[in-house]
């Protein structure tokens, strides 16, 4: 090796060492801080974001993604501070690295392929702390759609927001509005329904979307399972006497449904194997799904004027008198289905009389046999 070569190598070596030292000088405090944060998560989140904000507070900050779109990478620190993850958080404020990881400047990780892919990947950060929700999420339709490649499906931040997360249920109608951002048609139907109208009038009891569908573990509502279970779902409120008293709604609806042909069958499917589909009607087949109207209102599917059409959705040949074969949700009496009431009464009398008569005759036969047994013995 010549001296010249040696000098060149030495210079290069010194250069590299200087550069590395300079880099460490700049990066070290953040790295140390980040490692501390990671090891201590989630109990000791960090609130010092000053290093990140050197760049990310710039409102024009963007990154060009592979698909040609620009990803805005700016953060308003005030927004984060005022969110549930700000310093008002009982467990302390969250810092950038708590969610975004420690791939600090100059960001070695490759850029996401699209802004949407980035959003979904970033949502994974929520799972670090929100363990229960994550477990439920794994059973839910939105998560499974994403896993199966539908990136339009909702991730955590689509419903909750990212830096500006606020309590999701204050006010309560915010819950349904959140779902309505994607499920617009369903939301419109719901908003005009008896439940939706009451919700937006401030009723604290009526169901929002999540009361029927669940929150993170939302089940697919078109399965046999959901259908077979649905009467019990409605019954959680509609068989609750205390709750229904406020609205003057009968709680006999569920019991009367179960004693009817439809309800008996569905309940048996539900208890034997709820995954087997049945064609017997459940609550929402007659009352409607999201557009449930008050039972006696003009646009209700179950008032007398509309009932035949409703029956015909499953019984296409139904005759004009067919709807009367449904007893309704009130017990039969002399006023409501008197024929059924009287037939029942007839048998309530006939059965004890006939069977009682038989038992009486049998009893006399037994008496004779006992008497004969004793007299026979005494004769011996």
């Amino acid at each position, binding site marked *: 090796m010549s001296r010249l070569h040696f000098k060149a190598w030495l210079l290069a070596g010194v250069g590299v060492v200087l550069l590395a030292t300079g880099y460490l000088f700049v990066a070290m405090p953040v790295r140390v801080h980040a490692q501390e944060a990671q090891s201590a998560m989630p109990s000791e989140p960090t609130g010092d974001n000053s290093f990140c904000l050197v760049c990310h507070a710039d409102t024009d900050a963007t990154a060009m993604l592979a698909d040609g779109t620009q990803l805005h990478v700016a953060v308003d620190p005030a927004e984060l501070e005022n969110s549930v993850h700000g310093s008002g958080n009982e467990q302390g404020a969250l810092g950038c690295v708590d969610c975004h990881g420690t791939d600090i400047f100059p960001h070695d990780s490759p850029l996401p392929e699209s802004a949407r892919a980035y959003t979904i990947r970033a949502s994974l950060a929520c799972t670090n702390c929100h363990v229960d929700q994550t477990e439920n999420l794994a059973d839910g339709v939105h998560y499974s759609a994403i896993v199966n490649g539908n990136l339009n499906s909702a991730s955590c931040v689509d419903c909750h927001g990212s830096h500006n997360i606020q309590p999701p249920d204050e006010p309560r109608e915010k819950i349904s509005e959140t779902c309505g951002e994607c499920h617009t048609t369903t939301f419109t139907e719901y908003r005009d329904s008896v439940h939706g109208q009451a919700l937006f009038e401030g009723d604290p009891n009526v169901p929002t979307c999540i009361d029927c569908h669940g929150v993170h573990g939302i089940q697919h509502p078109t399965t046999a399972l959901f259908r077979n279970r649905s009467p019990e779902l409605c019954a959680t409120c509609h068989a609750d006497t205390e709750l229904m008293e406020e609205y003057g709604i009968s709680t006999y609806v569920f019991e009367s449904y179960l004693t009817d042909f439809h309800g008996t069958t569905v309940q048996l499917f539900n208890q034997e194997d709820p995954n087997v589909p049945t064609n017997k009607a459940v609550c929402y087949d007659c009352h409607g799904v999201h557009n449930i109207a008050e039972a006696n209102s003009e646009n209700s599917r179950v008032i007398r004027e509309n009932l035949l059409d409703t029956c015909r959705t499953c019984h296409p040949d139904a005759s004009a008198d067919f709807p009367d074969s449904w007893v309704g949700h009130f017990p039969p009496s002399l006023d409501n289905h008197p024929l059924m009431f009287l037939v029942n009464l007839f*048998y309530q009398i006939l059965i004890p009389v006939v069977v009682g008569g038989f038992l009486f005759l049998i009893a006399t*036969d037994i008496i004779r046999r006992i008497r004969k047994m004793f007299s026979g013995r005494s004769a011996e």
Partner: protein
Amino acid sequence: MAENVQSHPATPVAEAQESYKRFGPGQRFEHIVLLVTFSGLALTGLPQSFAEHEWAKVMIDVMGGIESIRIIHRILATILMAEAIYHGGLLTYKLFVLGRRATMIPGLRDIRDVLQWIAFNLGLRREHPHLPRYNFGEKVEYLAVVWGTVIMVITGFMMWNPIATTNFLPGSAVPAARVAHSAEALLAVLSIVTWHMWNVHIRRFNRSMFTGRLPHDAMEEEHAEELDQILAGQIDEDPSPQTIAKRNMYFFPYAFIVGTLLVLGLLFFVTFEQTAITTVDPAVVVQTDQTLEVSADEGNAETGAAVWASLNCSECHGDNAQGGEGRLNVALANTALSFEDFVAAVRRGPADMKAYSVLDVSDLDLAHLYAWLQSQ
């Protein structure tokens, strides 16, 4: 017992036998059909009637689920109805061709027999009543089967074909039929487990329905009057072969016509109505990818400008949608997005943009907005 035999009024001309013929093979076969169908119908029917009870659920489960037991129930009902048609034909033949006496018809004497039997049982009478070929207990059972079958067939038809039923009866007849069907079934089963069980299985195991013959002492106790007649040689004789042949000329065409009509009626009963659709489409509830009811053509650029202003879009997207100065500097003028994608984007709120629901802006307003953007 011996004193009872001595008290017979008729003078015996025939030898007393160990047992007497009671039922022919045809009757015994009919009984087996009835036994099987009745038990099967009860086993598959009662759990449906009492479906809310745990034992019923277990039974339904064991028999393959509610839909299977409904099919089994209907098959057995069809067999029972066919048996009823056969029985009716046979009965007509016996009464009108062979000229047999209708020994099953109850009369005042049966009331007398019951009262005497009770008195005898309670020790108020020394002798048991001299009961005829079919005693009061058997008549009650037979009539109960006839009555029960008629009720069950009529109410069963109404439940099997509710739409056809409501064409000629008020709708409320269908649930009334359901109540009657269940209650009548309960009555029938309770009668069988009390009266029938006691009389032919417990107080004496009466095998005559299977062997065809009844022993002398049972005849003595339960059919003393018939026994007297047999011993006195009073046996019904069939008419002469010529008479039978002559009567058959009337009977068989009649039986053929009525039988055919009844069998057709049965087929109608069983196959006529498709009450409900077989599968219910799942309720359409997932509409993330819904089709817009509004088209881009409906948009009006002038109205769109007002929508643009009212939603304050320019704050981010700049005046005239040429792009803003802030983070959201996406130019929208003459956007390349299709109307559908445009609406989807507004509804979802891409990147940091707020999502606009239908509460904020209607689809039609978005059409106006889109028209305005295209005009810029």
